[in-house]
């Protein structure tokens, strides 16, 4: 038996497989395909203080080995989550994390505070990296000073595990990660989507209603692995790695680069059972290579 347990700075996961926010709904959408309790945890759709309708259709464009999205944080607001979604999730024997977004510091703080009152949500993932909303979102995550400010403010209002999700749309991701660490984050997750765009040459119109959108999927994986490796070597808090993971090998690459856990995102659209495929594959890999404890892999790249 392989020991797959990981301890993310106090957040205990039975295995390192989580799901990426916005790609896994509220978990239950996948219940026909996945035994949710097998997962280390899952991270639900980005939640904001007030309901948001999101951006107009079309919100999605396929690209080579990936996709662009411009959903724009459509969600029913934190109170709806607490009243309607939470009761359906609270008894699951896995970690349910809420991805928290906002357009100003006060919104982030208030949303985090309300989620903090839910006993069975052990952590939030603070999204300071959404490229699809005009105000805020990524604006917080692309400058070390404002990233530090929003994290420090949320830290005061939220006592449980605070994971901060970083934007890759920066020149120096290490400086942002350090600022977030100094401001009190318990862990960081990276990467969110890369800002991109696509044009329909037949109509000469942008393929997304917002012109630009967030790029995800296997096409971004090598850049994400590089960023995880850089950050993991420069901060003390654990790193959760994501970006283009489809197979167990992809996931193990992130672990070897220094991630302590990983998230499966866009792959859920290709294979709704992608998470358990990755999990089974990690276990097989460990057996095959004589890995007794998953921690042997974390940061285990040889040079």
């Amino acid at each position: 038996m392989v020991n797959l347990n990981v301890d993310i700075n106090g957040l205990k996961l039975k295995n390192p497989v989580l799901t990426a926010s916005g790609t896994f709904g509220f978990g239950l959408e996948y219940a026909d395909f996945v035994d949710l309790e097998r997962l280390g945890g899952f991270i639900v759709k980005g939640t904001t203080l007030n309901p948001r309708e999101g951006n107009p259709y079309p919100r999605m464009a396929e690209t080579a080995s990936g996709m662009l999205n411009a959903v724009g944080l459509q969600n029913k607001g934190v109170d709806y989550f607490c009243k309607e979604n939470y009761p359906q999730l609270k008894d699951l024997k896995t970690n349910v994390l809420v991805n928290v977004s906002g357009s100003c510091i006060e919104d982030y703080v208030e949303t985090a505070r309300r989620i903090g009152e839910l006993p069975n949500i052990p952590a939030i993932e603070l999204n300071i990296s959404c490229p699809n909303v005009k105000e805020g979102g990524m604006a917080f995550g692309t400058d070390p000073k404002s990233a530090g400010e929003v994290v420090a403010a949320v830290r005061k209002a939220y006592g449980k595990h605070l994971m901060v999700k970083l934007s890759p749309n920066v020149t120096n991701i290490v400086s942002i990660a350090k600022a977030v660490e100094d401001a009190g984050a318990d862990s960081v997750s990276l990467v969110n989507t890369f800002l991109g765009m696509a044009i329909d040459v037949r109509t000469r119109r942008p393929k997304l209603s917002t012109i630009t959108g967030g790029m995800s999927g296997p096409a971004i994986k090598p850049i994400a692995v590089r960023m995880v490796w850089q950050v993991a070597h420069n901060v003390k808090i654990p790193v959760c790695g994501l970006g283009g993971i489809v197979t167990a090998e992809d996931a193990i690459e992130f672990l070897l680069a220094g991630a302590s856990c990983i998230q499966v995102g866009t792959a859920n659209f290709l294979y709704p059972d992608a998470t358990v495929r990755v999990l089974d594959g990690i276990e097989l890999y460990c057996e095959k290579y004589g890995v007794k404890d998953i921690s042997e892999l974390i940061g285990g790249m040889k040079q």
Partner: protein
Amino acid sequence: MSKKVIRDLRVIGNERIGGSFFMLTLQSEDALPVIMPAQFAEVKINNSVGTFLRRPISIHDVDYDKQTIQLLVKIAGDGTATLAHLREGDLLNVVFPLGNTFALPLSGRVLLVGGGVGVAPLLFTARYMQRFGFRPDILLGYRSKSNILRKEVYEKFGNVFYSTDDGSFGEKGTVMQHSIFNSENFPYTEILACGPEPMMRALAKWALEHKVECEVSLENKMACGIGACLCCVQNTKDGHKCVCTEGPVFNVKQLLW
């Protein structure tokens, strides 16, 4: 709605049926889940460099005894072109059955309206209605006589009327120009439709003006097909709705057309 499954289905038939249309017959090793009219499948396409996401395709027909489903597909781009080359024995990974269904009335007369490849979900709809003693009338619009798909099969389940753009079969013009919509008396209490968006918009406008119940099946672009990504939304009177789970069928009264 029944549980969704992800399965490798075996291709047991892939038949060219004129022009850019073909019909795939896929067999499941295990019993099929219950499938409702207008539900669709998300098909994983391999060996197509430009195709990353699954492709949503309506379930055209179902045979529970043989454990087969059929997909009627029009070649639109790389993904569908790759499907056209599948051979007997190949496996196709499919997630199904997805989406809602037409609200089938308990009484009254139903008119099914289809245009182009939008005729696909109407065959299983008509077959399903037959089980409940209904024989709908069916109005199908095509570009020309040579594009008409599976004529005899549709005619088994309903009285079929045709319109063709060039007048080579049935009445000349679009489905909206057909005499069904242009005579004194419209005998139907409900219209169920699938086709190109301009056709469905025109139909919706007509149905609202004439106070006839009308449901349309939409074809927004999808990523997940199961309500998780919020990419496929249609703007409605109640805000953004997912076409993959709250659709593909919408009552036109709900739409902002």
